[in-house]
């Protein structure tokens, strides 16, 4: 049970790390055009 005293603070930190990753993705506009990357292979140009 004692390990929880370490794991719970760790999970809080992990959430912040994940949030950081998401911020990076949002800020670079990765969610703005979700369709066209998939369609690109179908286009000639």
């Amino acid at each position, binding site marked *: 049970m004692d390990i929880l005293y370490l794991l*719970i603070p760790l999970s*809080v930190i992990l*959430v912040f790390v994940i949030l950081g990753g998401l911020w990076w993705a*949002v800020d670079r*506009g990765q969610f*703005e055009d979700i369709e066209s990357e998939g369609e690109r292979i179908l286009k000639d140009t």
Partner: protein
Amino acid sequence: MLTIATAIQDLPADFPSAGASARDVLALLDDPQEWSAFSRPSALGQGCWESSVVIEGMHCAACSLTVEDALKKVPGVLSAQVGSASRRAKIVWSSADVLPSAWMQAVQASGYRAVPANDVFASERRKRETRQALWRWLVAGLCMMQVMMYAYPAYVALPGDLSGEMEQLLRWASWVLTLPVMLFSCGPFFRNALRDLTHARISMALPVALGMLITFVVSTVGTFEPQGIFGREVYFDSLTMFVFFLLTGRWLELRLRDRTAGALEALMNRLPDSVERQLANGQFARVAARRVQVGDVLRVNPGETFTADGVLTVGATRVDEALLTGESRPLARKVGDAVWSGSHNLTGTVQLRVERIGAATRFAQIVALMESASATKPQGALLADRIAKPFLIAVLLAAAGACAWWWGRDPGHALMVAVAVLVVTCPCALSLATPAAMLAAAGNLARGGVLVRRLQGLESLARVDTFVFDKTGTLTLDAMVLHGIETRDGLAQDQALAMAAALARHSLHPVSRALVNAQALRAAAVEKSHASHTTWTCDAVTESAGEGVAGWVQTAGPAAADIKPVALRLGSASFCAVPARCVPGLQVHLCDDQGWLATFILQEDLRPQAADAVRALQELGLDVHMLSGDGAMSVARVAAQAGIVQARGACTPQDKLDFLRQLQANGHSVAMVGDGLNDGPVLAGANASFAFGQAAPLAQSKADFVILGEQLMAVVQTLRLARHTMAIVRQNLWWALLYNAACVPLAVVGLLPAWLAGLGMAASSLLVVLNALRLAPRLTLSSPTKMGD
């Protein structure tokens, strides 16, 4: 311009304290060159301008009233209209009394931000806003999930399972993860609530922000001071959950609104910012679109949009002119053909010579029409605006009352009941109910080639029970068509037509044009079969207005020397001195010095879809009438062809208006369909009106609906859509009323937990927008079949 763009973007968010620098930035907009980018001269008078701006920071109907009030208080601002769903404002101001910076500052002083519409940076800003919204939502979502994990043990643990220390640790972790949700994700709610409080007004954001704040305070006190007055209960899971629901609702609403109201916006902002212009040395270079001038040569690649009206000089392509004409099929364009600003180049790289730019283009007129329409408010929305404020006050009082009632038993529980009341109410659904549906319908119609000038027109049209059609140019095509030829024995029909056309070429009368067109068609057919035909030239042509043309006609080419010129007369029976034939339709005669040569019978042609449209209207249960200024005989013929029983000919415009009034006096609600050219008063007198946009300049059209293409079926489609729209508006209003009527009492008696209240509110306004979205699928107008080919 870009410097202003970035400068306005970087203005500090707390405007009341924004000092001289903000004013300097706005002062840049006082340059007439800058303001003409988002303004145009108003019809109200000399020196009056009509500006179109996007208002930022608006969240509900009450906001639009505040902004309107702030604008109207500025001396020199003649009128201001703010659409709450479209967030667009139309401001008419006089350049003699006020400058744009003054009224923009007024908007900012009231806590909002005005950004010139149709500009590069308006879209840039929107992009930034969307990113921020997404990011807030993600933070709330992730934190919610984790807080839920920490809350779980407290729900399932049996007494004694969870040690006090462990429980405290879990609460502490929940608190830490709730912090970013409160400080960042809820930021807009708190900022808006604070702004409204400092300006002593009330808005949607206030109850929600209050609810969040109370929950957070109660839970924080419960965490760090379990012996405090609020008890040791914590609500971090409820708090993060309802913030997440709320943001989800907002986010989806934003996306949906972009698709409905945004459909209009997308049409308006479809012109690219830069174009490839030919330089003096023949090379092409990218320049800003606003630098293009008449006479420039532009290169347009496939997939790009034409930025100016012009004529193709190099290349051939297919274009999509759906917005301009409602024609959804790609149209072929070759060298010498005209292309329009706002249409899409689909297949080939072409060059065009610019003939009209900016406000002179048809596209600009369409955009102007749509902009003013999206800033108008339908009556339903006005009502919702008015009741929004008393409604919010009632909610705050109800929350306070519920809190006071429960306080004696358990202060912590009392506050959470108040929170549920604050969060569950949703005047947003009420104020969105009407405009969301109407904007969706207007966007849909615009894509189908029907412009809505007044949103209110949709409501009137849905109630209409009688349709009145004008004849010429509405049920019939503008041009007349040759229907038959009778000739003197020994004269071929083709030859008679060729001689008549040679004369007719010198006149602009519709009859003459019809003859020339008919001859051109036959000549093309003859050429195809490689048969020989004679061409004719003529001399000394004189035209007697309204009667006919006379002149000397002779064959051209090698045979010319053999045949002597003939004196021919083409025109009415009296002009040619021959007896009129007894045939239906309009007739013109051709005669030489020996007398009658030929008679041409011309008829007005029904629009291809006229009969279908009339039948469809009758099937929908409407009375269909026809009025015309033409003679009774041709009116009766057209009426019979179109399937209209009630038709009246020989009407002056005043007669038409009287007839309309008579119908209205008998309790009918009347829609008038005209060509928009000479029936302005009649159109204005009808409950709802349609005009064909090809005849009259768009800006002068006074009709509620302007049909850009040729399809008469558009009238029927619009009627169906209007009825559908009003059905959806009614559903929305009922839903909003029932939801609030049911949920507020439940919350007051404490039966609704805070998280459920948040879910309810988010779902409620989402449902309204989703319901409106049912109007968004594209209209399917059947393509017109061209006559004569």
